[in-house]
């Protein structure tokens, strides 16, 4: 289907199903149960899952295929966001020009930075990308305040020209939309004690993610992808065969920069504000972590990694003492009190602790990332079925 082989088609359909049914999958707990706190099926987080999924898929095209570890990818996301908001301020709150501008500007920006950084390899490449991204952040936060609004973030205002739109005298800023369909529109569906939220913004982002995912499969399976893999295994030998790998690398860098730009554009499409923070080095580090956590060089891994990190960031950081008391309420007091005290180290302001421990555990025990864990589980199940078959080798550790 669509020029994919059978296995890839299966994978693609799997992702398609995940995305379509996300409102159900992410809201597994009934509303009245204490576990409803762990439901993630609300628009903001669902949008974040797919947007950061796009970001990580793009990053994986560079890092997973070529092994070049960029530590400055957040800069492209940030530039895309700024371009997007400016389009919405100047032209129209229809998100189409914003998305196009985000991709184009991020592409140009990554072309320039990639051209310079790709002259070096290994950690020297990483530090060069880091340096560019940190410079972008520092300037956006301070000197470039007239363009970026610095600390407060660039946002829409009533006084914006929006030249493609009819004059607006209502006293409210029009909402971001896609040819009239507002990004935040949608409906809730109640089934018994469950509530499932369907949001237009989410599904629009999801369509983009599907396209992004499809392109990434095609790249992985193309001669171009093979070429990039060759760079990873031995760039020198490739050079001896007379092939110049530089244009391929640059193409991969720009593609992944455009993915980041698209992610940045979608972020402002669903929530029209661009802050400099999203270019900070920790944001660049985050996408690296997502990719490694999920499984570098795998197609699905980065998406899983993105989902996991965003889940922890948004759900665990919001639990507080009274939530814990409710959760452990069924226990006798003498167990509940110490348990809540200990658990408090890991939720609320301690969510970073959970994240840090999670990184360590996964890297130590699942070198291939989450996807390896899934595969191991799968192997375990299939081994039970056919005990005679030799166990599957685990996925090659991603490098």
């Amino acid at each position, binding site marked *: 289907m669509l020029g994919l082989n059978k296995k890839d088609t299966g994978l693609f359909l799997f992702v398609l199903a995940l995305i379509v049914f996300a409102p159900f999958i992410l809201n597994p707990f009934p509303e009245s149960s204490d576990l409803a706190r762990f439901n993630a099926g609300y628009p903001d987080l669902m949008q974040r899952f797919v947007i950061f999924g796009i970001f990580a898929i793009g990053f994986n095209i560079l890092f997973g295929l070529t*092994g070049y*570890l960029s530590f400055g990818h957040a800069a492209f996301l940030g530039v895309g966001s700024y371009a997007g908001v400016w389009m919405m301020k100047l032209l129209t709150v229809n998100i189409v020009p914003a998305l196009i501008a985000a991709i184009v500007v991020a592409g140009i920006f990554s072309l320039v930075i990639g051209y*310079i950084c790709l*002259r*070096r*390899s*290994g*950690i*020297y490449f990483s*530090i*060069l990308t*880091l*340096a*560019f991204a*940190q*410079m972008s952040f*520092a*300037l956006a936060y*301070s*000197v470039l305040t007239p363009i970026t609004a610095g600390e407060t973030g660039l946002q829409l205002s009533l006084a914006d020209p929006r030249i493609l739109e009819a004059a607006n005298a209502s006293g409210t800023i029009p909402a971001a939309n896609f040819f009239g369909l507002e990004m935040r529109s949608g409906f809730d569906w109640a089934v018994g004690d469950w509530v499932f939220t369907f949001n237009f913004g989410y599904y629009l982002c999801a369509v983009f993610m599907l396209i992004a995912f499809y392109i990434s499969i095609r790249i992985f399976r193309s001669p171009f992808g093979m070429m990039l893999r060759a760079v990873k295994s031995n*760039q020198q030998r490739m050079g001896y065969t007379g092939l110049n790998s530089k244009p391929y690398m640059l193409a991969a860098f720009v593609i992944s920069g455009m993915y980041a730009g698209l992610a940045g554009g979608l972020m402002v499409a669903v929530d029209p504000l661009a802050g400099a923070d999203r270019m900070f*080095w920790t944001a660049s*580090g985050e996408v*690296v*972590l997502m990719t*490694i*956590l999920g499984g*570098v060089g795998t197609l699905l891994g980065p998406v899983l990694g993105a989902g996991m990190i965003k889940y922890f960031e948004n759900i665990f950081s919001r639990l507080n003492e009274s939530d814990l008391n409710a959760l452990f309420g069924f226990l006798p007091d003498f167990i509940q009190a110490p348990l809540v005290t200990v658990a408090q*180290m890991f939720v609320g*302001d*301690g969510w*970073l*602790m959970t*994240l*840090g*421990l*999670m*990184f*360590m555990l996964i*890297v*130590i025990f699942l*070198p291939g990332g989450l996807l390896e864990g899934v595969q191991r589980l799968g192997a375990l199940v299939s081994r039970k079925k056919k005990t005679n078959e030799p166990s599957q080798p685990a996925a090659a*550790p*991603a*490098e």
Partner: protein
Amino acid sequence: MDAIILQILNGLDKGSAYALIALGLTLIFGTLGVVNFAHGALFMLGAFCAVTLNALFTLSHQVIDPSRTDFLGNPLRVEIPYLVEWFGEATGNAIIDWSVPLSILIAIPVMAAIGLAMERGLIKHFYKRPHADQILVTFGLAIVLQQVVKYFYGANPIPMPAPDAFVGTYDFGVLLGFDPFSIMYPYWRLVYFLFSLVIIAAVFAFLRYTTFGMVVRAGMADRETVGLLGINIGRRFTIMFAIAAIVAGLAGVMYTPIVAPNYNMGMNFLVLSFVVVVVGGMGSLPGAVLAGFMLGILESFASMAAVIDIVPGINQVIIYLVAIVVLLVRPRGLMGRKGVMED
């Protein structure tokens, strides 16, 4: 002229911290081949050794002073440190006053223990793993260490005064023949600079003039051959990790009177010190020290008002700009070897 000399002093001072952290990072990388993203956290832990010792020294019991009241109108409880009670006002307060330098004595064994535990418990398993995995696991560790410190000490900076003897400024200008009061420099910052020179010299001397150090250097150059000679190089590398942890810790201890420590201080230094290491050249100890001082001085120059007026924002980006230029002109940094971390 005096302004420039002042900024050179500032640069040397900043550079001291960069150089010490970068030195430790390079030691770990050169010996074990591990990219340690938790090194900034070790620096922070060192600083909190000083905070902890100070807290221990000021452990006190409360005496109720009925003549004064607290904010709720209850009788005021006055805290009297045990040290003051045991050793008398003068000696007790003197010990508390000197808590930062005294912390060095505590920090050495503590940091060595942390270093050994880290290497044996965690890093050991990551020698053969990709650098990306090393980065991830040490970054995770750094986050955990930070959160633990935050849990016990809160998020706000904690003031750590230098001993009274080092409070105040030294008139450097007179020494160099300028007018008095033209170049005033705080004593403690001079102490910090000298201290870092001593540590750097000690590390280099240790590597150069002891048998242990020679074996380590041989191992850094060619681990396999040294192993074939029947030398247990792994154990020595473990000890080098502990030494790197001590260097970072001491840098942290002595830094506390300069900038009040908080749990996040390590992260602020982490990225910068990586830039320093790479500009110096991966795996080169002299390179790390040289780059540390160089970037410190350049950063200071870039923050002069006259410079900012010409190029706005230069103070924000100077380090990264220099890093880019250096790496484009010298592919492996200032003193890096070929083939290290290039793939």
